[in-house]
């Protein structure tokens, strides 16, 4: 099944990119990094939308509703709180406007 072969390849390459990129993040930013990465796994919401297209049983309706609530909470909350944290990181040179 060629599509799975491609998908697994993508998965492994993305893992390697992840390790490479994450390794360069300074310790100072590890908490925002973790919560930022956390919101990225909220991408599962895309999966929820996709399966919603095929839903036709009451059980799957329940699943879609629950998954949409959980996934969106993950995404939106994650990005908002990460931004809240990053906003606080200020530089010593006060005139240069801090973390922006």
């Amino acid at each position, binding site marked *: 099944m060629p*599509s*799975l072969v491609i*998908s*697994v390849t993508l*998965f492994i390459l*993305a893992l*390697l*990119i*992840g390790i490479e*990129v*994450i*390794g*360069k993040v*300074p310790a*100072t*930013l*590890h*908490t925002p990094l*973790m*919560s*930022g*990465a*956390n*919101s990225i*796994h*909220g*991408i599962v*919401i*895309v*999966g*929820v*939308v996709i*399966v919603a*297209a095929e839903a*036709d*049983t009451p*059980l*799957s309706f329940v*699943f*879609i*509703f629950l*998954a*949409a*609530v*959980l996934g*969106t*909470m*993950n*995404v*939106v*909350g*994650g*990005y*908002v*709180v990460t*931004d809240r944290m990053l906003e*606080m*990181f*200020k*530089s010593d040179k006060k005139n240069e406007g801090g973390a922006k």
Partner: protein
Amino acid sequence: MQATTTASAIDIVAWFVYLLAAVMFVMGLHYMNSPKTARKGNFISAAGMVIAVVMAFVKLFVQHDLIHSWVAIGLLVAGIAVGAVAGVWSAKKVKMTDMPQLVSVFNTVGGGAAALVALNDILAAEGTPALVVLITAGLGVMIGSVTFTGSLIAAGKLQGIGWVKKLSLPGKSVWNVLFALLTVASLVMLCVMPGQRLLWSVLTTVFALCYGLVFVIPIGGADMPVVISILNACTGTAVAMSGLAIDNVALIVAGALVGSAGVTLSVLMSKAMNRPLLSVLAGGFGGSDGAAGSADGPEGTMKETSADDLAVQLVYADKVIFVPGFGLAQAQAQRELADLGELLKEHGVEVEYAIHPVAGRMPGHMNVLLAEANVPYEELVDLDDINPQFPSANVSLVVGANDVTNPAARKPGTPVSGMPILDVDKSQNVVVMKRGRGKGYAGIENELYFEPNTQMLFGDAKAGLQAVIAAVKELLA
């Protein structure tokens, strides 16, 4: 014929839009490599998320007959609205000291959503799903469910909810092995007998949920940072597995990125705690401290000092290093420490903060807490960079940190041996602010406290720092 062409065209467009979203996630993480660009990175990553979700909706409307999935779309939109409100509310409300709990809660919901998507994919398929779908979706269900209950317990423990902390599990390894085997067995059965997929997928879910509980319950509270990282990695993997099952590039790449982030951070954390990752996960240490008690304690007496004396030492110093630990955050005294630092800097004293990798309750937590107190990030110095500077420091002020300053770590045969520590004892004078004479998490006395150049200031960190600030102001007046 026309319809098929349209469908494949939109498929190709969607593929590239999802790929673009994935690229934006990588860019977002890349910009996290400096506090200057990190906020922009988070924004790019969020924009990628919006693009991916919009694409999914566009595809939904273009490809499917709306009348049939009307209920589903209504529920989907309602669910997104509820989730968005809940997400923003919790993100705005949370205190920075409570960040680890919130991350854990987001892990819970993310893992739950991934498990639901995968479960739905198994159950909703018409006819027998392909083996590939069964394996990947099955793994998604399994990992997502473990994360769901595991993160829930982790959040409860970090929040200090009484009954969650008291939960114990006699014969923990037996339960761990039992539920791990049952989960894997159900997953295998699901793949072997797809005819009864309802039964086997429900069993996989239930056993995996139980495994999540027995996995996290025995692990001690102080090891939770590592556990959160691991669970974060698990959620990422669960999402990637769901992505493989529904063949979606955005889910695969995003899941893999989160997976590698979680694993990288867990490894860093467990190295900084001087414990092999596996021993943290096996849940030893936190429960028993038998080995710790047998070690010979250091000899000698502690010398006490007063806020006034400390103020004199600080004001007449050329260089002062602050060493904050989680005790500082527990006493909510970050602002006082920052104020003291500011006061000394105005007086011409060089002030720096030594940040141990495990200061706080998750990686980098202390940096966030001090950033909230307006300490510029340039003054927060990592272990490797600050250690050579201790000999030139006139005074090191340790506030609420213990094991990470214990010189016993340099000798073999103690519970902290080999752990990377801050070389506080090498500075000319050391003052330790500490709530009481209690031992640290490792359960041993800190040799630092008995050194001739060390003085102790017992009491609440917040009240103590306020007294020091008042005394310093008096001296400078």
